[in-house]
Every structure is written in structure tokens, then in C-alpha cells.
């Protein structure tokens, strides 16, 4: 851990990974002041790197504020640091001390551990690993954050067999407790063990996934997303596009008690990223993972994703202060406002929720949620409404997707898919369950 690099450091995932590592190195350095720690943050985008430094500094301050008990112990012998504020500022300075930023991969020359979170495009990753393979010493380990590209393709193409492992964080990396660990067939067992240990240090739970495009997380999410788009397209002729989007959005969120509806989640990931991952997965799996609607939206410039400040950009939905307030109508390229009348109209079409007082937010803090979830789905079984039928179908399809992942050997067990969905996607329950049996 004394010389670590992050490639693609200023991106959404890269910045979170950079933050986690910067904090870890700072604590190590405080515990072992004689050692030197370097964290090289590499990105093509200068302003992105400046934004990254600002982000790391602000988050380091917040982390320091949360950890002052620990800091007071670490700074026990520093007579000049008395107040919490002084220790927090000293910690922020310590975090920043180990960082160096730049646009060239040469910064990673001496790194023994390289995290890569570059844009999810094969050609970009090929180029990066070609260069890193030539630059870095043979002992360097590569941890890629790819969420879809098969790793053996990268290792063989770039001549780094045995030295790479998939270390797939979930967004945001500093918060989500999950890392999908994907060792390609030729992975050095020492690297596999080291990656497990590293995840432990970073306080992440690991779930093993097989090296098949999309792995577990995107293996489920992309198919679930396409399924929702198809469902919406099936409903659109009768209800209209915007209403159909809202119906599927509402069912996937309020009826299935997920933190976000599917269209908000696609916007959050970015429609462009969604398309890229679809393309990569389709290239290797060839099972029709494609949506003409997604292509059309991107041609129209509707992308979703976030601004550099973290604000949600418009996609399928329009956002104000992070909350969805409108739904895209691709015909007019405008957003239909989700006002009370619109929402009531959609609710009338779906029918009443089994228990309108249940919400993902309230349940996520409720230690007795298992019982409430079971009651919710038991009620769902008995309801004769469009919303209930849609929710039952969606839950069943989601379970089928998960079981397929096990059948294909992407996940070793159904529990692993459940773990990824609950830890990585904040679902309250895994897709493989007996709620509707």
C-alpha cells in the first residue's frame, strides 16, 4: 500500500476509490510515521483532477470529524494539537500530503497496486493496460473496476495474465459496503488473497463473481433495466409514453420497495453508460441485450448522469433538487410535469398499494422489516389490480434473472446475487426469495 495509483481517478467511481485510498494511506502514515506513502491520481481531465482534490479534501474533513476519537489517540503526542478542530485540519493536511495528480500514466511507474476506473470502453482500457504493462514492474497488481468487460480479454490482450483481478466497487464507493471480486481463470492466487485482504481493510464485503461479461451486478441490473423498458413500451400505446414510464417507475420503486424506480436508477448510472455496458455485454453474450429507445434518447442528447457537483442531470426523468419532477416525452422532447393530477391519474390506473405507509426509507431503518415485507408481498398476491399484477411479474422476472446468473455460473449461489442486490443496490431483500410462492 505504500505506492498506489488510481487511473481514471476523477471519474465518478475513480474519485470515490481515490478518497477511500487517500483516507486509508493517511491513517497508515499516522500509525507508521517513518514510512512513505504515495497515492498517484491519474486522469486525462485537469479540471476533473482539481475537482477531485477539492472532493477529497472536503470528504477528508468530514471523515476526520466523524473519527475525532481516533484522531485524538493518534495525535496524542502532538502537543500543538489540542482542539478537535486542530486535529481535523491536521488530518486533512495529512490526507492531501500523499496525493500527487497528473495526466500521464508514467505517474504509476513505481506503483505496486494500480486501481483502474477508466471509462467503460474496451479500447480505452486496452490502451491503458498496454501502456501500464510496459511501464510498471512485473510485480505490480492491477485491480480493475470494470463492471462488464471480461477480464481474461484484458489480460490476454495486454499481456498481464495473472496480474489482474476485478475489484468492482459500487456507487458511491466510499459508502457502499460491497466489492464484487472477479478473479479471471489465470489469476495469481496471491493476488486473489491480497484483494480479499484489501477489501477487508477498506471495510467492504466481497462477493465472488465469475469472469463473465456483466458479472453479477450488471448481470442483473442491465437485464432488469431492459425488462422494465420493454414493459414500459408494452404499456405506452394504451397509456401514453410518460404515463407508462411513471407506472413502471412507481411499481419498481413503491410496489417493490426499492430505493429508486428503474428509470431513476438508469438516469443515475447514466443512459450513455447504460448503453456502453449493454454493448460490451452483448458483444460477449449475444442474447439481444439492446434497446433502440436508449439509442434514440442518446441521439437526442438525453444522457442522465451527474454534473461535476454531483447533481443529477435530466434523463428519462427531470430532476429538481435531486427529486424527479417530470417525465420525458421523446415525441416533443419536453418533460411532462408530474403534478398531483398526473400522479393521481397513474395511481388510478395502477390501483392502491397493499400498504401505502410502507416505504423503502422507513423499512430500511426498521429492524422488523422482514415481517413487514412478507405481509406486503402476501397482500400483493391477493390484489386484483394492474399495479399488483405488474409488481408480481416484475418480482418474478427479477428472480428469474438472478437464478439464470446462478445457472450460468456467474454467481456461485443465489445468496451471492442477493448479497450484491442488497449491499450494492440497497435493495431490502434479495431477488431470490419465497415472498410470492
Amino acid at each position, binding site marked *: 500500500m505504500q505506492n498506489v495509483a488510481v487511473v481514471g481517478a476523477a471519474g465518478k467511481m475513480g474519485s470515490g476509490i481515490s478518497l477511500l485510498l487517500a483516507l486509508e494511506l493517511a491513517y497508515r502514515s499516522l500509525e507508521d510515521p517513518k514510512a512513505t506513502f504515495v497515492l498517484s491520481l491519474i486522469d486525462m481531465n485537469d479540471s476533473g483532477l482539481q475537482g477531485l482534490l477539492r472532493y477529497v479534501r472536503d470528504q477528508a474533513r468530514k471523515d476526520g470529524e*466523524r473519527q*475525532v*476519537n481516533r484522531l*485524538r489517540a493518534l495525535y496524542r503526542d502532538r502537543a500543538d494539537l*489540542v*482542539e478537535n*478542530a486542530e486535529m*481535523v485540519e491536521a488530518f486533512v493536511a495529512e490526507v492531501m500530503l500523499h496525493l500527487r495528480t497528473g495526466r500521464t500514466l508514467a505517474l504509476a511507474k513505481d506503483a505496486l497496486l494500480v486501481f483502474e476506473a477508466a471509462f467503460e470502453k474496451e479500447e480505452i482500457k486496452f490502451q491503458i493496460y498496454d501502456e501500464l504493462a510496459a511501464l510498471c514492474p512485473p510485480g505490480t497488481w492491477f485491480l480493475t473496476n470494470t463492471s462488464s468487460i471480461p477480464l481474461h480479454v484484458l489480460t490476454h490482450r495486454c499481456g498481464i495474465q495473472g496480474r489482474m483481478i476485478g475489484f468492482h466497487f459500487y456507487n458511491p464507493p466510499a459508502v457502499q459496503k460491497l466489492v464484487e471480486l472477479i478473479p479471471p481463470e489465470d489469476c495469481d492466487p496471491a493476488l486473489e488473497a491480497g484483494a480479499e485482504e484489501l477489501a477487508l481493510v477498506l471495510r467492504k464485503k466481497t462477493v465472488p463473481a465469475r469472469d463473465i461479461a456483466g458479472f453479477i451486478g450488471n448481470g442483473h441490473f442491465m437485464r432488469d433495466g431492459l425488462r422494465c423498458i420493454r414493459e414500459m413500451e408494452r404499456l405506452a400505446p394504451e397509456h401514453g409514453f410518460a404515463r407508462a414510464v411513471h407506472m413502471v417507475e412507481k411499481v419498481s420503486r413503491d410496489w417493490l420497495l426499492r430505493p429508486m424506480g428503474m428509470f431513476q436508477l438508469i438516469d443515475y448510472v447514466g443512459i450513455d453508460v447504460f448503453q456502453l455496458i449493454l454493448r460490451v455485454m452483448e458483444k460477449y453474450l449475444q442474447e439481444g441485450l439492446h434497446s433502440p429507445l436508449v439509442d434514440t434518447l442518446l441521439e437526442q442528447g438525453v444522457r442522465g448522469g451527474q454534473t461535476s457537483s454531483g447533481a443529477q442531470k435530466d434523463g428519462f426523468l427531470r430532476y429538481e433538487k435531486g427529486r424527479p419532477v417530470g417525465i420525458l416525452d421523446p415525441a416533443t422532447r419536453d418533460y411532462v410535469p408530474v403534478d398531483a393530477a398526473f400522479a393521481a391519474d397513474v395511481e388510478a390506473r395502477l390501483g392502491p398499494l397493499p400498504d401505502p405507509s410502507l416505504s423503502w426509507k422507513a423499512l430500511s431503518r426498521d429492524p422488523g422489516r422482514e415481517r413487514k415485507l412478507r405481509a406486503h408481498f402476501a397482500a400483493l398476491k391477493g390484489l386484483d389490480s394492474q399495479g399488483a399484477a405488474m409488481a408480481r411479474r416484475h418480482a418474478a422476472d427479477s428472480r428469474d434473472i438472478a437464478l439464470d446468473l446462478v445457472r450460468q455460473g456467474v454467481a456461485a449461489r443465489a445468496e451471492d446475487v442477493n448479497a450484491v442486490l442488497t449491499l450494492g443496490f440497497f435493495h431490502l431483500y434479495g431477488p431470490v426469495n419465497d415472498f410470492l410462492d
Partner: protein
Amino acid sequence: MRTLNKPVFLAAGAYTLSLGTGRPEFNPRTPRPGLDHYIREAGAATLAQIGDPGAIDESVIGNFMAARFNRQGHLGSLMTIVHPSLEYKPALRVEGACASGGLALASAVKSVLSGMADAVLVMGVEVQNTVKAIYCADYLAGAGWYDGERKEGHTYFFPGKFSDRAGAYGAKVGPEKARQAFAHWYRNAVENARLNPDAQEHFNRVDDLVAQGLTPPNPKSFTDHLNLYDCSKVSDGAASIIVASEEGWRRLGLARQDVVELAGMGQMAANLTTPPPDLTEMTTCRRAAEQALAMAGTGIGDMGVVEVHDCFTISGVLLTEALGMAAPGAGADAVLEGLTRRDGRWPTNTGGGLVGYGHPTGATGVRMAVDLWRQLTGRAAGYQVDLKKDHGILVSMGGNDKTVVSLVVKR
């Protein structure tokens, strides 16, 4: 034993709501009122109860750390914003950590006793939500011995100090009984606060307060022996009341039923640089209360209502012992038996106290006096208790039992 050389009275009390987490008006991300707002509001509410503001001879304001929280000193002069008639009259600011409000009362009492004033407007104020709790803890640590204690002190300095007391008390009476007593103190505080619209915990709707109070302390994120429910919150607020001679309150246009009489006062300081002689005893508080009761010629049994400085639930429990409501080591039992409940033998902190109403540090001593005055004159509205005795006592404490003011009043 010194005695009061003439009758002194308290009248026309008021306080603002205690702003901080828990209040719907509070949003840490939006700008909030400053010191001047609270001084004006509490002052105006007091002046609205008297006929002639021009009859006020002096003003005194208690405040602990405005210089750090608000970068504002010179608060005596700021008192004149309450009313133009206060200009060109004596005004001073006093400081004694969290007993600053109590000291302001004591100072006013001395002015009246000296004959230099017949009516003194007393204010207490603190605006603390200007910084995060983690930094607020540093500012409040100024109530300890900074050079000798801060470096080795806890992240949350005072919660750390009182956590040590809670640990020692747990060792003495059994940790489970101690924790139960803290949880019951918390429940009483919130139940009283629910009756007081100005209290910070007024909107607390938790069903099982005792279960919440039993939350095990988490030393990693907080302290060894206290959880967050054991602590008074970070608060902004002000309180004011008038201290007057008989001639003074008559000149203000008040009647006897509007005022309560000061029967005894104990005010003292202990050495800031030495640790408490016994972690399970509030020695200075005990001595100050004994002095006030002796001066009043009364005992704790004569008190119909009690206001104690429960900055933490452990201080509340220990103060029941310091005041003689329970024998040493029996405070936990007294709380568990309901002696301090509003329908118990000693209705205590009837408006919520520091844990329930909130703890705008410099204002707290004055707020306590207002609650005593309200109870004894039947003005406590929704949180009025049925008084069985005519006296009330308050104990206002600064630091870790270092500066204390105790007043005994009667109707």
C-alpha cells in the same frame, strides 16, 4: 450565616424556544437568528409584562462563549437593544460557564441588596448552533481547565467528564441500575418537554423513551458510559426575568401575586484546576444548595418544585443526592421510584430541564428561575404542576461542579 438584609423578588419571566435539532424550525443548512434576536425576543416578552420599562435601573446579561460561538463580546452594551430606557444605565455581562445565567441572577440580587438598584433586568443568552457539535465541544471545553485538561480530555470534553462520573456511579450502585435511572430521567425530561411548547424535545414522539434511554453507550463514536440521549442538546435561546425590591416591583406596576420572593441564595466556586473530590458527588452543588436552604431557613422537604442542572442524565441523578432528595448512592432509586416525576414528591425540571427544554448554556440559569417563578405563580400553563409546598429551589452549575448558584424562592 449571612441573611438577606431586605426582601428581594423575582418577577416577569420569559424565555424563547430552545432552537436546535428536534425543533421543526431548525435547519442546520439555513441561516438562523443571532444573539441580538434572542436578546430582543426574551427582553420584549418580559417588558410586555410590566407597566413601566423606564423603572428598570440596571441590566445584567449572563453569557458563556459568545466570543467564540458568535465572535461577539461586549454584551452588556448589547442589552440596551431591549429598550431605549436601558441606555445610559448600568449594564454588565457576567460569565461562569454554564452557570452564567445563575451568576447574572446573583449579580442582580446583589445590586438590589446593595441599594444601588430596585429593579434589574436579568438576561441569559447563548447561540451555539453556529458550529458542528464536534467543534461546539471544544468551545464548551473552555468551562474546564483548558491548559490542564483539554489535551488529555475526550473528543466531546464534557460528555467525557460526565461519562467518567456515570461510570463511577455505575460502579457504586451497579451499572444496570445506573443505566435504568438515566433512561428514566430521560423519559421524565421528554415527557415534561412535550407539555412545554418552547422545549427542544416538545415534538419528540418516540413511544418507548425508556427503551431509547437504555441504548448502550458506543465508546467508538461517543463516550464509554453515556449515550446521546443522556445529553442535553446544542441549543440557541435566551431567558429573562426581573429581580426587584418591593419598591421596585411596585414601581414596575406589578402586584404581589405576580412575584415570588427570594428566600435564600448560595453562590460559590471551587478550584478549577483540581479534579472533583468524589466523582459520584456534586460537592459544590451540595454546599451551595445547603447554603441557600439554610439562609431560607427551610429544608428540601419544604420544596414544592425543583430545577436542577441536568446537562446530562447523570448530573440530574447526582443532583437529587446533592440536594438531599436522596441519600448518597440512592439517587438512582429516587428517580426510578418516581420522586422527581411531575406527580412525584419533588416535581423536577417541569418544563423539560436541560435534557428536555434544551441547554442554551448562558441562558440556562435564568430559564430555571423563569420556570420556578411560573410554577409558583401558576403561570406554567400546559406544564403547570399542582404545588404541594410553597417553596422552590434551583441549582445552576458551571463546568464540572465548579461554579454554582442556588436560589430558594417562595410564593
